[in-house]
């Protein structure tokens, strides 16, 4: 899961970044509206945390332009303006959720998880696939009720595959959603990682679709 954080306060930006990475997300950051708008316009993100009071271009304009251009990733607005008139304006611009500053990090993370789940069509906070269970809140994966020991990158990969189970995910797509912008991308690492994950969860669940990519599906069915 790759998240874009657009927040002009460097300290808060850093805290958000740390908390998100701790929860297993790949995080890109932007410190002003123009940079944020550009990133959101060109990179595929699974969710965006957007401050409204931004230098160079305000958050509502950024959001409106994304929506007008057909970018439909879930956007969570994070702002000091907490009157209902501000909220209504934010949702009107196309926001999916709204958190007012000052906030509790745990609450923000919970809202973000719900947003991502909703976007991929899962209603529950737990996502299952055959014997696997993804606990998004705890950033853990269970197999038959026993937690798997995963590195952060392996968790990211498995979590992304479980959100998109049944779909064929290309290697490029995986790279884009697992690594942040600054990461030195090398498709071989994906292959190595898929191999390691497959060893931990069992061969049948994570299949290679030749020439196209990978697919996570419960055994005995495509769904």
């Amino acid at each position, binding site marked *: 899961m790759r998240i874009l954080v657009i927040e002009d*306060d460097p*300290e*808060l930006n850093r*805290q958000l970044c740390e*908390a998100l990475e701790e929860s297993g997300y790949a995080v890109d950051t932007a410190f002003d509206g123009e940079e944020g708008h550009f990133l959101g316009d060109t990179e595929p993100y699974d969710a965006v945390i957007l401050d409204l*009071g931004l230098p160079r271009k305000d958050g509502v304009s950024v959001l409106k332009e994304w929506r007008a251009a057909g970018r439909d990733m879930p956007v969570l607005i994070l702002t*000091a*303006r907490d*009157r*209902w*008139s501000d*909220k*209504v304006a*934010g*949702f*009107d611009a196309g*926001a*999916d*959720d*709204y958190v*007012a*500053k*000052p*906030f*509790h*990090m*745990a*609450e923000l993370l919970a809202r973000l998880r*719900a947003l991502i789940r*909703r976007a991929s069509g899962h*209603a529950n906070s737990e996502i299952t696939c055959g014997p696997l269970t993804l606990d998004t809140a705890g950033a853990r994966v269970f197999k038959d009720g026993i937690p798997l020991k995963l590195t952060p990158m392996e968790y990211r990969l498995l979590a992304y595959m479980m959100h998109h189970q049944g779909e064929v995910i290309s290697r490029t797509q995986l790279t884009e959603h697992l690594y942040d912008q600054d990461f030195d991308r090398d498709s071989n690492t994906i292959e190595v990682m898929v191999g390691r994950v497959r060893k931990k969860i069992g061969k049948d669940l994570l299949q290679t679709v030749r020439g196209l990519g990978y697919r996570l599906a419960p055994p005995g069915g495509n769904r």
Partner: protein
Amino acid sequence: MLRKLFTGSLASRLVVASLLSAIILLVVAGALLSWMFRTTLERQFDTHLEALLNGLLANIEQDDRGNVYLVRQLTDPLFQLPASGWYWQITPLTSDRRAKAEFVLASPSLLERRFDVNWFSQRPRDADGAVRITMPGPHGKLLRILEQRLNLFGEKRPYSIIVAGDARQLRKEAIRFENLVLALFLLFGLGLAITIFLQVRFGLRPLRLLHDEIAEVREGRRKFLAGDFPREIRPLVQELNQLIRANRDVLERARTQVGNLAHALKTPLAVLMNEAASRDDDLGRLLREQTSHMRQQIDLHLERARRAALAGTLGVTTPVRETIMPIINALARIYHEKSVQVEVECDEGAIFLGERQDLEEMLGNLLDNAFKYGGGHVRIACRLAGNMLDIMVEDDGPGLSAEQGKQALRRGQRLDETTPGSGLGLAIVKELAGMYNGSVNLETSSLGGLRVHLRLPAARNNKR
């Protein structure tokens, strides 16, 4: 006292000044008029005396010894009546203009008294050489006297001829006229005073209008002075409007700055709170305590700034339905997982007499509660009842007991610490409604949960 009369009121200043000048003018005019009347009377009397004098001259002759004698008595019997006040006297003078008393000829009315001719010699004479004077005569009566010096019968020595008449009548007539003038001018002055008073009232009416409009501006019933003012005070009105505008701008800026400051503080506050949350030592506890205190302060001052914003925004209207729908859309996204069913019944033409932001704040808080605590069924109805709006927000949640309800309407109370958000927001709704002279009541809904009854002032429909 007099000073206060002058500085205390423009009207009394004008009235007093006009009255004073009117009184002075009237007194002068009255005096002048009676003086003119008196002189005219005297001139008439003098003319009569002259005619008598001429008649007298026509009736005298000189005998062989050079003494003057009367040929015929004058026709007026008053000259015969003793001490009647009507007299004549002819006195021959010596060459040094002194009277020769032994040859004096006089009217019988004088009896044995005589005028002192020598006294007349010292009097200033009119252009025709006569002395005209009003003074008490030989018998104590007030007389009008005409004394003329003439050379008679071709003699070198002049004669002094005096004709005098009773001047009391003259005086009486003058006094009667003066009384009439006084009465007339008093009446005239009274009329003038009333006119001045009315004039001042009429003339100063634009000022009173200005006063009324300024009061309306202060009470927020109008934004600017807009009356049709006369040219003389129009610059003042324009200056006042500028002042009002400047004042409003300053207020607006101050308000925005308070808002901006409070909002700007929220980000560093969020940073501190996050930092504090990750530490379990004394510093972390201290930070948590202080940040929560700071947060309350910020909220308090933001609310004050908002309340200040309410002053001067009267006359603004907001349609209710158009305000409800975006809020429901927003809430539907926030509570996506709950799939809440919403019924909206809103009278056409239900328009709130107040700021959109405030209606949004009230409805947002109430609907948020209904979405949050309800079991998935929310109903909002808005009815127009006279000049008030009845807005009902209902849900099928657990509702509130009477005690809980009382607590929820109190400031800063939070019933449910586990659900995120800053309290129920009912206290905010109550405060806002109160500012608009509305009310909030908590009731039980037919849906089973809480029903909040919000009463707010409605705008008249035709008023846009």
